[in-house]
Each structure stands twice: as C-alpha cells, then as structure tokens.
C-alpha cells in the first residue's frame, strides 16, 4: 500500500461535518414522526371494510416498497413540482420523500402489531360489551403501539441510512458534505471512512437497543 494516511487536516473540517450530521439527524427525526403517523393511518386503511380504501392503502405501500428509494427521491424532487405547478424547496422535497417512504414501511409494522393482538382480546371486548370506539382507543391502539416500538426503532435506523440518498440531489447532509470535502482535499479515504464511522456510531447502538427494548416490552406484555 502506497497511501499515506493523514487525519490531521480533518480538524479544519469537523464543523462542516457537524453541520452535515445535524441536517441528517433533523431530517431523520422529522420524517420518522411524520412517517409513523401517516403509517398508522395507512395501516388502519388496510383493515377497512371498504374495498376502495383498502386498495388505496395497499397500492401506496406496494408502490413505495417495490421501487428504489432513489427513484422516489428523484421523482419528488424533479417531477412533483411540475405536477403540482409549485416550487418545492430542497428540504421540503426531502421531507416529503422520506416521510412517504417511512409511512410505507411503518404501516407494515403497525399491521403486524395489530395482527399480533390475539382474537381472544377481541372476544373479551365483545363479552364485556365494550363500545367500538372505546375498544379501538383503549385496547387496540395502546397495544399496537407497544408491540410496534421495537420494529419502529428498526425502521428508524433504515430511514437514517436511506437519508444519505438526499446527497444525490444536492442536499447538504452528512454524506454530501463528506464527499465535498473529499473531492476538495483529495483525501477520500480518511474523510469517507470517518463519515462511515459517524453513521455507524449512531446506527449500531440503535440497532442493539432494538433487541433490548423488544425483550423488555415482551416481558411486560406477554402475560
């Protein structure tokens, strides 16, 4: 190997990387919240008796799960403004694209969580004469959320990783900043490796946390 590593110069650029990281984290956080909310609505749609509502929900989910996230981002960035006849800023486009993606994957999570609620819970609600609204809000919804949390955490990690794709449309996230610095300083190895480690340092603990959370929750719920 004839490459001489030099990490010293990186101290000059750490603030730029920090800004990039902040953008990535903010984007992830906003889209997780928006996406999860929308995802819950979509999962409810897929339990609907109305065939139209069910179809809309299913088509939406299959569309976003069956196409590359990159194309989704490109479409929102380049095609949506044309379709809607409005200008959409970089940040807004990114939020729309990633939230829609998060909604699709989290709706599957909620759906599985709802299915995991045993039939006998539903029977108990009938036997107790529980009103339908009370049943949904006090029995189904809380248990769905609790059961969904571990997988939602996992979805969040996925979203965090996919967020790096916004660098491809010129948004200044962590990867974009990193690539920028790499080209400018001709030290791609150090920079890109560092950027990779930053992503890792955040995603890895979260992934481990999923297992811990899952065990704690299962102990509390599965009586």
């Amino acid at each position, binding site marked *: 190997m004839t490459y001489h590593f030099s990490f010293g110069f990186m101290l000059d650029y750490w603030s730029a990387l920090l800004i990039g990281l902040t953008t990535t984290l903010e984007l992830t956080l906003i889209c997780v919240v928006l996406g999860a909310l929308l995802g819950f609505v979509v999962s409810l749609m897929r339990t609907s008796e109305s065939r139209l509502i069910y179809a809309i929900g299913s088509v939406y989910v299959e569309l976003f799960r069956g196409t590359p996230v990159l194309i989704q981002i490109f479409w929102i960035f380049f095609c949506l403004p044309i379709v809607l006849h409005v200008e959409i800023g970089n940040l807004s486009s990114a939020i729309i694209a990633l939230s829609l993606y998060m909604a699709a994957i989290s709706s599957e999570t909620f759906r599985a969580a709802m299915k995991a609620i045993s039939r006998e819970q539903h*029977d108990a609600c*009938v036997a107790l*004469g529980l009103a339908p609204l*009370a049943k949904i809000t006090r029995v189904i919804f809380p248990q769905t959320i609790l059961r969904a949390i571990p997988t939602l955490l996992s979805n969040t990690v996925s979203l965090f990783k996919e967020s790096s794709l916004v660098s491809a449309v010129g948004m200044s996230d962590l990867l974009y900043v990193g690539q920028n610095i790499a080209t400018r300083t001709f030290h791609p190895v150090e920079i890109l490796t560092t950027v990779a480690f930053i992503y890792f340092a955040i995603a890895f603990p979260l992934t481990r946390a999923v297992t811990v959370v899952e065990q704690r929750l299962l102990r509390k*719920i*599965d*009586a």
Partner: protein
Amino acid sequence: MRDQSFVRINGLHKSFGQGAVQVFTGLDLEMSRQDRLVVIGPSGGGKSTLLRCIMGLDPIDAGEIRIDGKPYVSAGEGSQKNRIDRAIQRQVGMVFQHYTLFPHLSVIGNLILAPVTSRGEAKAGATQRATALLERFGLADKARSYPAQLSGGQKQRVAIARALMLEPRLMMFDEVTSALDPELVVEVEHMMVELAEQGMPMIVVTHDMWFAKNIATRVAFCAGGVILEQGEPAEFFSNPKLSRTRDFIVNVLRAA
C-alpha cells in the same frame, strides 16, 4: 319442579365455511334460573362454539336462543345477519380459557374499563365497586398489579371479577381451568363455587369431572353437534343412558 326456562335454545344449526363443517345440527337445550349447567364432551364436539354462540361471538345459521322467554339471538332469514338483542347480551358474562386480560392495563384498569367507557359509570364509583369485588375474592392486594405479574390462577380470577363488574344475570365459563397448572385450578374453582352459592346461574364447559359431579345441578354431554344426553349429576355419572356417553365418562375418569 323446575320453574320456567331461563335459557332456552331451539334447533340450533351452525356450520363453518359455508356448510363445509357442520357444528350443530339442530341442538336443543334448556336451563332454569337455579341451574348450574356443566357441558362436557370430546374436543371439537362444539362445546366452546355453543358458548360463543350464546355470547353472540359467532353467528348461527338457524334456530333461536331465548333468555327469560324473550328472543335473544335469532338466525337471520336467508343471508341476513343474526338479530341479537344487545340489552340481553349485556347481561351475559363470559370468561375464556386464555385469560385475555388487557396486558397494558392494571387489574383495576381492566375491571373499570367497560363500566366507565361503555356503561356511563363514573370512574370513582366504578373503582369503588371494583375494589370491593377484589376484596370479596381475596385479590385486593393485586389491584395495582399488571397481568404480567400475576399467576395463571390470579389472572383467571381477575378475569371473572372483570365479568362480574357488569352485573350479569348469566355467567359462562369456557374451559377456564384447562390452561392452568393443577395447583392453581383450586383457587379458580373456589371462586366459581362461591358464585354458585350466591345463586348465579352458570354454564360451564370443563374437563374437570370433580366440578361436574359436585357443583353442577345438571350435566349435558355434547358430541357430534347435538346434546346427546343430559341429566342430574348423580344419575348421569352412575347410569349414563347411551354407550357413547358411558365410553366418554370412563375414558375421562381414567385419565384424571
């Protein structure tokens, strides 16, 4: 002499999968207010389904269920859904084999949920009643516990208490001790015996022959979708009329 029928089932027909699996082929059953009816029979004979139909959980194809002479569950004509009198349904309580306590609520929470949200009862009043009920059955110290912290026997007793909160006129128990470790069965049956002594009419599906012999006022043998035989326990167990009944009793007692 037995007073007028409390629960009367006439000509119950039910199948699953649009006629693919026949569960009931014209089942008749009667029960008076003083009765504690125990239903026994082989697995898949329809015992649990019978309770579920009475509870209104599964639809019936034909026939009628009346309580106190009033129509309760009637089969719809043609493809129409069953007509269920909701007021009467609210007076029937049921406890299931697998606890089905709501795991995210405390014991007290489980007990007051239905009264507060669906019967317009004030939370304070419901909590008071719930606490009194728990005390009556020796569960007061578990009021704030969560289902995951309770033993199987305690969970079932809480489930019974939860059903009692609705002040039912008829209680149904679907194999409530079948999933319990043997030493926990006693505490649950003790509670059921107390209820029986307080005059609660009940229909009990169970494999526990002790209960059938000692607590029941009538025993019914349900197999092949009909009540093949029924009678008072003493008579029923010592002198079963059908050989099929006899075989079943012998096998179950041997296994006990």
